[in-house]
């Protein structure tokens, strides 16, 4: 394992060091004193594990293909932007547009996430991306969602706190959202409906929940105390019949 002290370093230099190490075959890199450094792990298409201590900056793991990143701290905006594969584990909160257009891999966030999380997430063949959020999510959760899986656990919410913000699933036309607990109809986009879980859903959920519990040392019983609801789009082609040929 290689340790890089990021204090006082510009993001560009830090990322160059990381790219260098990974291309030399270093499999595990520990970054300490990370403080807002952007673009860590961008486009990383090799197997490697990066452990971040501190707060990475925006666009963490954008366009990433297969590495594993663990953040001991919070993550900012744009994490997993257009990510294609790999795993990100965040031991804190993550902010806006997490997993924008993500097509593969998994993101686990112990705490809360910001606005527009999972926007335009999509799946393709055996690529089925997933985002698991331990706490709550902001407005426009899963907007334009076209594929993949989004799970919100709502752990530690106050009794009057909502698990997601408004406009959840607006424009959604594919994929599945699982929310632990209930969601008020007025918080949903008009393209989504609430349905109950099937056995298959329970199986799918099991895998992700076990991972969450393992990564963040949470007891599974804690999660199992409340049932999940499932959100699906009404229509795979919400904008199919809007046009007339001129």
């Amino acid at each position, binding site marked *: 394992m290689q340790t890089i002290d990021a204090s006082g370093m510009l993001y*560009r230099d830090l*990322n160059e060091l990381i*790219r260098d190490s990974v291309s030399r075959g270093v499999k595990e890199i520990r970054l300490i004193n990370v403080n807002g450094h*952007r*673009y860590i792990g*961008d*486009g990383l*298409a090799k197997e490697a594990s990066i452990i971040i201590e501190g707060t990475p900056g*925006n*666009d963490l793991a*954008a*366009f*990433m*293909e297969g590495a594993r990143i663990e953040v001991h701290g919070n993550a900012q*905006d*744009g994490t997993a*932007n*257009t990510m*294609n594969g790999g795993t990100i584990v965040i031991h804190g909160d993550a902010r806006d*547009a997490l997993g*924008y*257009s993500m*097509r593969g891999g998994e993101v686990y966030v112990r705490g809360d996430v910001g606005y*527009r999380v999972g*926007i*335009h997430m*999509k*799946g*393709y063949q055996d*690529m089925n991306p997933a985002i698991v959020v331990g706490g709550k999510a902001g407005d426009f959760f899963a*907007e*334009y969602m*076209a*594929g993949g899986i989004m799970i919100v656990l709502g752990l530690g919410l106050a009794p009057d706190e909502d698990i997601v913000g408004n406009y959840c699933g607006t*424009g959604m*036309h*594919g994929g599945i959202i699982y929310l632990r607990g209930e969601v008020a109809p007025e918080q949903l986009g008009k393209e989504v409906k609430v349905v109950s879980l099937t056995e298959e859903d329970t199986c799918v959920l099991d895998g992700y929940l076990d991972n969450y519990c393992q990564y963040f040392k949470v007891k599974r019983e804690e999660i199992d105390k409340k049932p999940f609801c499932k959100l699906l789009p009404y229509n*795979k*082609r919400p*904008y*199919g*019949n*809007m*046009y*007339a*040929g*001129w």
Partner: protein
Amino acid sequence: MSLKSYVTPSFLIERNKERCIKCKVCVQQCANEVHRYDEEDDEIISEEHQCVNCQRCVTLCPTGALTIRKNPNELRQNSNWTAEAVRAIYIQAETGGILLTGMGNDRPYPVYWDNILLNASQVTNPSIDPLREPMELKTHLGRKPDSLSIKEGKLQKKLPPQLELELPIMFSAMSFGSISLNAIKSLAEAAKQEGTYFNTGEGGLHRDLYQYGENTIVQVASGRFGVHADYLQAGAAIEIKIGQGAKPGIGGHLPGEKVEREVSETRMIPEGTDAISPAPHHDIYSIEDLRQLIYSLKEATNYEKPVSVKIAAVHNVAAIASGIARAGADIIAIDGYRGGTGAAPLRIRDNVGIPIEFALAAVDTRLRQEAIRNQVSLVVGGSIRNSADIVKAIALGADAVYIASSALLALGCHMCQKCYTGKCNWGIATQDPQLAKRLNPELGAQRARNLLRAWKHEIQEMLGGMGINAIESLRGNRLMLRGIGLTEKELQILGIKNAGE
């Protein structure tokens, strides 16, 4: 109860019975199923309602028996309620739909290229004959440093990455999905042979096209279709698509019907699903955010590729371009309001945006005033119809131009504007394998190459006539331009003098 349609056919088909040999070529060729052979009567019948006047049947009829005409049937004359205005209302009353069209704005707005004249040398400086004397059209696109330091004949600092073009013309973004793979292959091959670039649009890069990587600009649009690490690495440059001239401010929408297997694999979305590109990139709500995506892409590709940002020409284009340059883009591509499209809402196409001539002049002027013109290259499109448009664009300040409609015309497009139907009879704007086969990529490449070569020679002729032997000396050289039939204000925006001045 279904509504009776009040829409009358736009075109009339005349079949010269003496010439027609009933070979049924027209029946086979029309994907709109206009022509039908009636066995009982041994007659070919044409259902004109579906005809889009793409001229396919006319061109292929071996005896020249067919003529397509604008339907001479006219509504009562009315300068306000024109036939088109009425027709639009009938269609919308019958369908409740947003009117959809293809190709660029066809309204009779002024084409400013046609109000600009070029200069030539007479007596005081000699013109140059490009056939016998060297004439340099080579163009480099990318950020140029503020200064160079050279020691012992060597550059002391590496130049930022540049695209090298043998001629200042590139093929503009057209996605696989909006056009056929054969059309893209034609353009990719032509770009390779002539030393320039084609652009993937937002449709990803089909596996057969990776071999053209060195001549490819890969686009990253709001839907991020087909974007992954290999794709980013494959191209010579990356273009962030913010907007396009035919539909500024709105997203794209490739209907599921066009997402067949190959398109689905390339875009990496399930077959038959709609490919929806949101109107904005949801990671870009400001110039600062744009900078973030630019640098995200640079980081992901190790600062080895220039990053272009494509925008539609809109009212505030100069200020926006300044922001884009400061955000770190290496190239700004500006698409004028006549830019083509595979599909756009009619009202947006025809009413939003500004002419590329004004946008270009305004941007070039602004970047010069701010002393940042060297930081970005300017590429303009929408619409460049011939080599003279290109010479004028370069003299107004462009580094290169993007062509798309012209390129498709070279491949056989007949400008019927029905690209959105997916039934392009010329094998271009279609994913129907039978139709796509009509375009042979080798012949397509030849036609596109011929066009580039013809324009190259014409540009050289015009440069030679001005006594200029390198395109570099024409860039932003507005003294080579004069306006005709323009107002004072128009001349001022274009930054050119009137003819005779």
